[in-house]
Every structure is written in C-alpha cells, then in structure tokens.
C-alpha cells in the first residue's frame, strides 16, 4: 500500500515525460535537449535552485489550497482568482500602511488570507444558499478577480510615476526577509512548510477535519452522520481560498514586491496538478511542489533559450494529472460492493 503511494506518482511523471517527449519531437525539437535545458534552468546553479524553491513556495500554497477543498469533495478551479484577490489585499496593506516588520509581515499575510478567503467564501455561499456548482462559479470568479486587479493597477493604485499597469513598490518592512544571500530565496519557503505541517495536523487530528473528509467521501453518508454539511462546505471554501490568497502574498511579498497585471502566470491552475500528484496529502504536496516549481523555472528557461514556449509545461502538467487518474494498465475496475 505504501509502495503504491510512491510508485504510482513516479510512474505518472515518467509516462508524462515520455508522451511529452513525443509532442516536443513533433514540433521539431530534440526532447532530450529540451529536458536538459529545463533541468539546468531549474537546478543548474545555486541561484537557479533558489529560484526553483521560490516557485516551490507558491506551488505549496496553491497545492494545499486545491487539496483542502478536494478533501471536502469540492472542486476549486478558482485558485487563480483567490490568488489575485489575496495578492491585492496583501499589497494594499503592504504599500499604504507603515509598521515595523515584525507586525507588518503577519498583517500582510492576514490580509492576503482574508482576500482569498472572501473570494472562496462567496463561492461557498453560492453553493450553500443556491446550490450553484462551484466548478462554474470559481472559474467565473477568476475572470472577475483578474479584471478587478487590472482596474486597480490601471487606476486607483497605479504607481504615481510610470507607464506600466502596476502598483508602486511595497514597503521594505513588508518584504519577506532573504534566507540565502545573493539569491532570491526568502523565508516564504519556511512559511509554506509551516502551512503544510498545519495541513497535516488538521486532517489527522481535528474533528472538523474529520467531518470535512467524511463530507468528501460521501455527501449522503455525511448528512446521515449528522455532519453540518453547509458549515463544512463554508470552512472548506474559506480556508481553500485563504491558502490561495497566501500564494498571492508569496508572489507580492517575496517575488514581485508590487502588484500588477499578470501577477500569476496561471499558478492557480498548477495547484490542481500539485495536489492530485501528491494524493492531496501534505507530504505528497510538498514533493510535487518541488517538481512543479522546477517545471515553472525550467519552462521559463526553455522559453528564453529554445523555440518552445513555456506552454509546453502545461502539456506535461496535464499529462501528469491524466496518468494519475487514469489507470492505463488496468482494465475495468469493479466497485467494491
């Protein structure tokens, strides 16, 4: 059983890379060269590895976000929007409030969490009150969030001097402190690890965690067992959204030091693959975050140095998901009666 937990994801990665190689060959590039360029881009130097860990940080938060909702049987395709709204609220606090670092950083994180939680919470309310499918509303909320941020950085919070659609820089006191000199690595990675530990403890030991998991296993059973379904749906969406918002904080406070159009290049959707490959478990999400963080950084490298766009990594990502959920080697499984 334990072996299966590790073998299956690894096999999925290998299969995805193999099929991905075919696609790369199809568009006239040498797959081995491309994969080598990605690997070098992601781990080729101390700086590159640090950058990979920075992206890993964001991946952990979006992975935990997807996993949190998924445990409760909810499909949160709206992490992208939650990330934007978290990033927006975080940057407002980070830009316009002056505080010592020890208070400023936690306050920014709180703001980011709240921003994402509100965005996820709206979806929760729509589901609980109106039975609106979260699969549709989350996607719509993504677009709404993107346009709100675009509006803000083109108008109300646009940097006073400058032509780009972006805010001014956040206060130095709100920037995540550097962890490794001369690299981009910040304490964000430690915050992400702490979040993952809390995630593990939550599912293992708390009663609401247990209730949400029961809800995820079967809505009907949960109802018969007297579980407060609506409350659990709300908690799932609020926390899932909040974690997405924290991913936005990592980008604002640790990477960009401002908010702008295109704050996230689709990281919200990466969370889906991160969580599914990691079997929605805290440990699994940590490991798959490294992979998808590396894919992001490696993808940037091939975009710069080869003729292929970064979109290639979406192909790999989708293939990983498919090989995780589709048992290509097994014939029809029977439901356990």
């Amino acid at each position, binding site marked *: 059983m334990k072996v299966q937990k590790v073998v299956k994801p690894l096999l999925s990665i290998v299969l995805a890379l193999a099929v991905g190689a075919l696609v790369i060959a199809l568009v006239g590039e040498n797959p081995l060269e491309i994969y080598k360029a990605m690997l070098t881009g992601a781990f080729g130097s101390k700086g590159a590895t640090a950058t990979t860990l920075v992206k890993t940080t964001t991946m952990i938060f979006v992975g935990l976000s997807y996993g949190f909702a998924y445990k409760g049987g909810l499909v949160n395709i709206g992490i992208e929007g939650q990330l934007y709204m978290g990033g927006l609220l975080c940057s407002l606090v980070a830009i316009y409030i002056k505080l010592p670092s020890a208070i400023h950083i936690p306050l920014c994180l709180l703001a980011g969490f709240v921003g994402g939680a509100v965005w996820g919470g709206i979806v929760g309310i729509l589901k609980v009150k109106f039975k609106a499918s979260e699969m549709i509303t989350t996607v719509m909320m993504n677009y709404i969030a993107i346009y709100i941020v675009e509006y803000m950085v*083109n108008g109300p919070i646009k940097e006073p001097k400058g032509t780009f659609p972006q805010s001014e820089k956040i206060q130095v006191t709100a920037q995540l402190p550097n962890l490794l000199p001369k690299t981009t690595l910040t304490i964000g990675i430690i915050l992400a690890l702490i979040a993952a530990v809390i995630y593990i403890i939550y599912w293992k030991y708390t009663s609401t965690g247990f209730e949400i998991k029961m809800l995820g296993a079967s809505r009907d059973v949960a109802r018969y067992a007297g579980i407060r379904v609506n409350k659990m749906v709300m908690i799932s969406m609020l926390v899932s959204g909040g974690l997405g918002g924290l991913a936005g904080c990592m980008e604002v406070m640790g990477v960009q030091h401002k908010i702008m159009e295109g704050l996230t290049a689709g990281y919200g959707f990466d969370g889906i693959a991160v969580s599914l490959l990691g079997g929605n478990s805290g440990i699994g999400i940590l490991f798959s975050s490294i992979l998808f963080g590396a894919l992001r950084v490696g993808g940037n490298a091939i975009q710069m140095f080869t*003729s292929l766009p970064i979109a290639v990594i979406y192909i790999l990502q989708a293939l990983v998901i498919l090989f995780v959920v589709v048992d290509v080697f097994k014939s029809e499984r029977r439901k356990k009666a």
Partner: protein
Amino acid sequence: MSFIRAVLESSTSILFASFGVLIMQLAGVLNIGAEGMMLVGAFFGVLGSSLTGNAFIGTLFAIAAAGITGVLFGYCTVIKKANQVVVGIAFNILASGLTTTLYRHIFGMKSDSTKVVGYTDLGPFSLPVYLGIALIFVLSVLLYKTKYGLKIRGVGEYPMALDSFGLSVDRIRFLSIIFGSMLIGVGGAYLSLGQLSFFTEDMVTGRGYIALAAVIFGRYSPVGTFLAVLVFGTGEALVYRLQAIGSGVPTQMILMIPYLLTVIVVAFFGQKGEGPAALGVPFFKNAKE
C-alpha cells in the same frame, strides 16, 4: 437591429458548445473539458482555413480535431472510468498547452500572420448562425422523438435499466461524447472564424464553462438551453456595445459583465436545474448496487 445581430453572433459559439455539452450531460457525462475542446476547435479551424483558404474546410478540421479529443476523453472517462471532473480539468490544461505550442510552431510569433478566411455572410448572417438555430429543432426531435434520444437520456438517467435490456451503456456514452465534442469544436471554430478571423492564445476565455452554465440554466432541454445562451450572448454583445459607446465606465468593469452575469444566473436559476440522475457517475457493468 444591429444589437440583435450582435447578440446572435455572440450566442452562436456558446450555442454549439452548449448543445455539445447538453448531449454529453444527458448521457451522464459531466464535461468540464468543454473549454479545452472549444480551444481545440478554434485552433484547428484557423489552421484548416489558413491551409486551404476555405472556412468550411477549416470547420471540418475543427470537427475532426475536437472529435479526436472526444475519443480521448471517452477513453479516459468511459473505458477507464476515471474521475470525469479531473479528466476535464486536465483536458483544459492540455488544450491550452498544445494549442499555444502548435500555434507558435506553425504560425510563429507574428500576430498578423494568422489572419485567415472566415465565414462569409449569407443574407444577414453566416451559415453557422442558421445551423445553430436549426439545431434547436433537430436536437429536440433527436432527443425526444427518436430511439437514439431515448438511449442517450436513458444512460444518463438510469444506466442499469439499459444494461439489463442488453444495450451497451459504454458504447452509447462513448458515441454521445464524440458527437458532443464535435459540436463543441464547431463552437470553437465559430469563435475564431466567425466572430474573429484569427486565433489568439487561450481565446475561449471561459465560454466553455458558460456553456455548462447555459445547460443547467436551460433545464437540460434544447429550447431552454438556447434561451439561456441568448442571455449570455446578450451579456457579451453588451460588452462590445458599451466599449464602442465609450460610456466612461472603466473597461475592466465592462469586460466583467459576462462573468458576473453567469455567476448571478447560476446562483438564482441554477438550483432547480436537477441534472440527469447518473450525471458524472461512471458505469460499472458488474457493480452490485
């Protein structure tokens, strides 16, 4: 008059996609991957049109490519019984990656190189607009007056019954998926060849999910779905109209309209839209239930 025209044109793309989704949903297959299938249709429509200089041959490209996507979707969800939602999401990501990669490979980075021949108007509209409206009647008859329709709705509502009758649930679902995917592909092609004459990366921008909303809002019937699509088409047409007038409202707030509209519609009119009983549930022939 020109506004009604804009509504119908904006609606056509979502209409084809919605009808494709409708057939799959009625057969019990939840297709979150409609967004990706539209994108595939949009890209291959442009590719076909640029290779042949004919928008209708382009549409055939779109139908073929979306059909193949449907075969893969059917393999994953019907043959392998994988989680339909997760497979759908993966297909959307895959479609985004594949079309962007192929687009850059084939057309290069120059944006003007992709201007292709779109549909020509016959009377006030181009052919797909009429076909979309004709489909309301064709599908109503197909789904409610023929044995094929009965089979499709049967595998969505109570697959065990059809199975015990000696029919293959998997086969009916698989064929419904392929047929539905092809329609969704046409919706994508209309987006790139009808509303525009070029392809841009990730150009579907949520219409696949709006199609899902339209099917729920339309109470899983062809006529209802059409009316629902008109509401969303009006939202999209309103965007163009408001942008053209220059109302002083920030652009981003205008661009938000279709998405806000969808959220509101799903919230206030979605709850009674009870779908087919077996929607999203894989069928295991030997399951004891």
